[in-house]
């Protein structure tokens, strides 16, 4: 069997390790890179290196940023009294795109996950407690995922933050907008009854 040139197979192997990229996609991307002008390939490799060198976590909210504190934390128009707690930095972009939320964020960098041995110490919970203790935070909105891990994390936050006298809220789980009760799954439907609001 004829073997591929070594650098090419190394590239395919590397790409294959990326999430969501299977063997076939890795091959396709590698051959594409091989065909692109050298300048473009260089830009790609530089972009990868720059991400590693320049992107850091904001020391206040753990958002990804290239300046510390991050743009959001420095923005005087944001409400510093409201902090939205999320699992991953990527969640910020989803909320920013949609929710019209004007407060600040706090990224936990995960959720409690006993089976993986991820406890409170592995998450950025202590810095959040400190942030609340420093004063100025009036409401903490817990926007962890509606999974068992996310709910356990929310309950744990309630336990450690509530005694500090801060208002704690949880984002509602419910029916998808435009959905139809008839097609809603039982779990979502049960949750939306629990999270019902007075009209």
């Amino acid at each position, binding site marked *: 069997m004829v073997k591929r040139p070594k650098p090419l197979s190394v590239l395919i192997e590397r790409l294959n390790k990326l999430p*969501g990229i299977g063997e076939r996609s890795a091959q396709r991307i590698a051959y594409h890179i091989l065909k692109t002008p050298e300048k473009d390939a260089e830009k790609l490799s530089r972009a990868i290196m720059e991400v590693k060198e320049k992107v850091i976590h904001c020391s206040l909210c753990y958002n990804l940023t290239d300046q510390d504190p991050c743009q959001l934390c420095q923005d005087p128009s944001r409400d510093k009294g409201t902090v939205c707690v999320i699992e991953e930095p990527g969640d910020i972009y989803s909320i920013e795109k949609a929710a019209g939320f004007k407060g600040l964020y706090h990224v936990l960098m995960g959720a409690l996950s006993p089976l993986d041995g991820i406890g409170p110490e592995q998450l950025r919970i202590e810095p959040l407690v400190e942030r609340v203790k420093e004063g100025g935070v009036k409401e903490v909105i817990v926007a962890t995922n509606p999974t068992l891990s996310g709910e356990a994390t929310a*309950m744990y936050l309630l336990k450690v933050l509530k005694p500090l006298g801060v208002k704690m809220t949880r984002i509602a789980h419910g029916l998808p907008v435009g959905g139809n009760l008839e097609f809603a799954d039982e779990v979502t439907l049960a949750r939306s009854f629990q999270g019902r609001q007075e009209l």
Partner: protein
Amino acid sequence: MALYDTESIVVNTIDLGEADLLVTLFTREYGKIKAVARGARILKSRYSGFFQPLLVLNTLYFGNERQELYRMASIDPVKVYDISSSMDKMFTAFCMMEVLEHCCGPGEINLPMYRLALEGIELLDSGDQGPNLALCFAMRGLSVAGYMPHLKDCIACGGDLSGDKLRFSPSRGGVLCNRCLSGAGEHFPISMGCLKFLVATLGLDLKRSSRIKLNQNLKEETGNIIFNHIAYNLGREMKSLRFLEL
């Protein structure tokens, strides 16, 4: 290619690729299996919301016999439970998931274990269950899986366990009296209270687990004994046990 149609308990899920889930199911008829649920993380997926730990589902999946990974075809919930209403409940749920994960071998049919799991889940749903249920469930799971520690007398000499300074030896798989410690490998002190609780869990209706009074020390001691027993005999770390103390 075969199609499997059975009731299952969701043991655990892991994100796979962009939108899929790798689901571990404890099936009533075929034991523990792993299956890929395509697109299950998309909010509008037909699976949406159902692959939550400890939900009981009618499942249809397919794949070749003896293959390690199946494909989900469809699901239909048997009963929807809410175990996320308190922290105690959730951490007990994590322990139950881990017992099923550790004590059931892939593809091993184990009906008593399945019934135990259903009973545990039912209880978890019915009231505010805490660490006691988790500890009882772990002991009963070990017993059903054939890893029950020896507790009624000294595992080495068969002598009475009424004396003080009793030790628990994971490598021997039971309790030792103080005359039999030499050459027993690593062993831990075990108090009479803990021993009594462990013995009680084996004959006890799970429903009554919450009636036993366990103080914090006893809870920790019992958790440690179970942890070490599982670590040695099953080669697995039951990580969720320490979360019972949160």
